[in-house]
């Protein structure tokens, strides 16, 4: 028996899992119209790879990954692209995001699919394939999976933790997935193990899911994957918390699990990897729990992009529904209206009613009872964080490790003053991010401004130098036309003025002609110099030529500077 460790704090909210966990998962009917936001993962949004009017097949890539941290988006069914336009997306701002609008043709025709032999493939290529299959973490953060395993050299992973804890109340997608597709999950875990090179693989499942534990143990029989039942305690499914429970290791503040040699992935992510590696299916669907104030709470397999109204219809919202929660009641997002598409992070829709979710009592001032600090799984001091966020003293919040807060809501759950603590923390975090962003922008602006001033100064100098040099060239070429240039002998930094003033028109014209010739020659020389970029493959002859030209230029420069410095009459070349 493995020794389990405890994380600090934790709470026991009402579970409400049985409502939806017992019925087998169903498949939602094929939607007529799908909306696919380009930004469904952490990092850069995907780059559109189709055009309006294009006919696409199920599983075809619609948008490709862009930049380091990003993932691709695929067509969840066959049909045609009707628009690439703004549409409301599930986001706390309630703002619109750019989405690909797809109209299904009802045929659900796949592109060609092929299984991958992942063991025969070099690791970087496999990671690229995962990126192009749009595989992101389904545990909630939607962090692109390939980024997690593209480790900097020197970092090793000893332990792979697979997260099946599913600690949020109401949500049962991972539970159902483990009961119904344990074999597929284990196949996906094998791919992750191959990627991470981990020696030890641990699957953590809360002990309120006995059937899931049994199913996973059966699927893992004969392999060295260990399925561990962990005590039910919210938030044991937090990445850092589960790692702590299973390995006793503490992820450092501001660090990632990979810093301590651990990688963590959700069971649903493992299953998605299995679908891709063994069946060639990119990430185009996921399980969603529909529960709360509905007739038949259940889990539904939903194509990404399905309007949430259609997802809820599967379970029939009952009268008295006052709104919806996307995600769980602890960390989810409250929305009034469901004209939003399902995205890769949509794991649950809870229909709210006044009985199930009575409106919270009004917030009262903090009485500094420190109950919040007792339950905080990140071992923070929420009462202090609240105090400083409220006062907008952001420097202090960072001193109190605001960024270690996982926004689990345990503190707000126990607060006797009903203070929406997490809202304060989110506010403070986004303010700090914005400030950092502005600071960076100011820094860049300062640099650019300073560089501009430096450039202007340099240009001024170069111009003066050029003028002096030009003058020298004119002087040098003078005897060839045999036109005396009496004044030019007094060449100085500002020869134009002196010439203009003292020389008669003839000489000036001749001089001008000389300059134009010199400029043309120089332009020719420059053009010749600008053309070859391939200076690394030169013949000895060319090199000799270059050396010769360089010598001539050096001589010219020397003459110019000599003359400039001493006001000597120009020498002949």
């Amino acid at each position: 028996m493995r020794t389990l460790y405890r994380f600090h704090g934790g709470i026991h909210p009402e579970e409400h899992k049985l409502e939806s966990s017992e019925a087998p998962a169903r498949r939602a009917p094929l939607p007529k119209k799908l909306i696919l936001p380009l930004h469904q993962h952490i990092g850069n949004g995907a780059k559109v790879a189709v055009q309006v009017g294009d006919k696409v097949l199920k599983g075809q890539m619609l948008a490709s990954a862009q930049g380091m941290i990003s993932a691709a988006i695929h067509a969840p069914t066959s049909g045609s692209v009707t628009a690439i336009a703004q549409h409301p997306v599930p986001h706390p701002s309630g703002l619109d995001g750019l989405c690909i609008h797809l109209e299904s043709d009802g045929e659900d025709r796949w592109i060609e699919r092929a299984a991958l032999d992942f063991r025969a493939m070099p690791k970087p290529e496999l990671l690229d394939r995962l990126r192009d299959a749009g595989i992101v973490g389904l545990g909630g953060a939607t962090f692109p999976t390939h980024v997690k395993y593209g480790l900097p050299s020197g970092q090793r992973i000893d332990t792979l933790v697979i997260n099946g804890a599913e600690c949020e109340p109401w949500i049962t997608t991972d539970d159902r997935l483990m009961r119904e597709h344990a074999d597929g999950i284990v196949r996906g875990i094998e791919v992750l193990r191959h990627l991470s090179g981990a020696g030890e693989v641990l699957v953590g499942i809360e002990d309120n899911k006995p059937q899931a534990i049994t199913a996973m143990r059966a699927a893992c029989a004969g392999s060295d994957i260990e399925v561990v039942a962990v005590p039910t305690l919210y938030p044991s499914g937090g990445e850092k918390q589960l790692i702590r429970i299973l390995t006793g290791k503490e992820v450092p503040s501001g660090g990632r699990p990979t810093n301590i040699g651990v990688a963590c992935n959700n069971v649903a992510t493992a299953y998605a990897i299995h679908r891709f590696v063994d069946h060639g299916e990119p990430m185009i669907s996921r399980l969603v729990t529909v529960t709360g104030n509905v007739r038949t709470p259940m889990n539904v397999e939903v194509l990404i992009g399905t309007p949430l109204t259609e997802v809820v219809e599967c379970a029939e919202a009952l009268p008295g529904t006052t709104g919806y929660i996307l995600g769980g009641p602890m960390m989810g997002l409250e929305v009034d209206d469901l004209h939003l598409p399902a995205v890769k992070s949509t794991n649950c829709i809870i229909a709210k009613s006044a009985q199930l979710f009575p409106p919270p009592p009004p917030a009262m001032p903090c009485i500094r009872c420190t109950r919040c600090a007792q339950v905080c799984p990140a071992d923070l001091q929420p009462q202090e964080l609240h105090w400083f966020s409220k006062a907008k003293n952001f420097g202090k919040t960072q001193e109190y490790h605001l960024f270690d807060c996982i926004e689990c809501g345990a503190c707000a759950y126990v607060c006797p003053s009903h203070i929406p603590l997490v809202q304060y923390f989110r506010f403070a975090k986004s303010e700090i991010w914005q400030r950092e962003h502005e600071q960076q922008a100011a820094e860049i602006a300062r640099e650019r401004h300073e560089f501009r001033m430096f450039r202007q100064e340099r240009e001024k100098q170069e111009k003066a130098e050029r003028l002096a040099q030009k003058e020298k060239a004119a002087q040098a070429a003078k005897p060839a036309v045999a036109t005396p240039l009496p004044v030019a002998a007094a060449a100085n930094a500002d020869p134009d003025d002196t010439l203009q003033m003292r020389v008669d028109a003839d000489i000036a014209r001749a001089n001008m002609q000389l300059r134009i010739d010199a400029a043309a020659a120089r332009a020719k020389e420059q053009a010749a110099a600008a053309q070859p970029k391939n200076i690394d493959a030169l013949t000895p002859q060319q090199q000799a030529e270059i050396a010769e030209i360089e010598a001539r230029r050096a001589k010219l420069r020397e003459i110019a500077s000599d003359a400039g410095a001493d006001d000597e009459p120009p020498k002949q070349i």
Partner: protein
Amino acid sequence: MISALWVMIGISLVLGAVLGYSAIRFKVEGNPLVEKIDAVLPQTQCGQCGYPGCKPYAEAIAKGEADINLCPPGGEEGIHKLAELLGVEFKPFGEGKGPRAKAVAFIDENTCIGCTLCLQACPVDAIVGAAKQMHTIVASECTGCELCVEPCPVDCISMQAIPEDISTWKWPYPVFAIAPVRNNPQKAEAS
């Protein structure tokens, strides 16, 4: 008593020597206050403060020649920071001198005649173009200082507000309606 006095005098002489030596040995080059003030200013380089850029304004503040409430791009936030840095009272913006909404310049590329005047005005080199070529603005580098608007002879530069989108959205400050305390009707009846 006398010996105590000697000890104190001795200590003060030694410390004085150390201080005097370190003042010479560790002399700070340049004016650190100007750098600190400049670090707080938004570096928009717009000249709205009446100085030809942020650094000159910082120098003027350091010399005590300028007020701390002259920089609109910095916002009230910036005045607070300056007040804190200099240990003076916060001072609100003068009438009608407050900050404007964030914007970036936009060149109507069909009207641009390629005169390069805006290019020379931009303090952060955010405009690309060449003589007689169409010019355009690198929006990510534009600080919104509006210095390029005025010089354009064909008035083809306009300032466009940056709309709030998901990437720039911020969580709002939590605001709650204060529920009035209602008398409990049962209690009211009983009393």
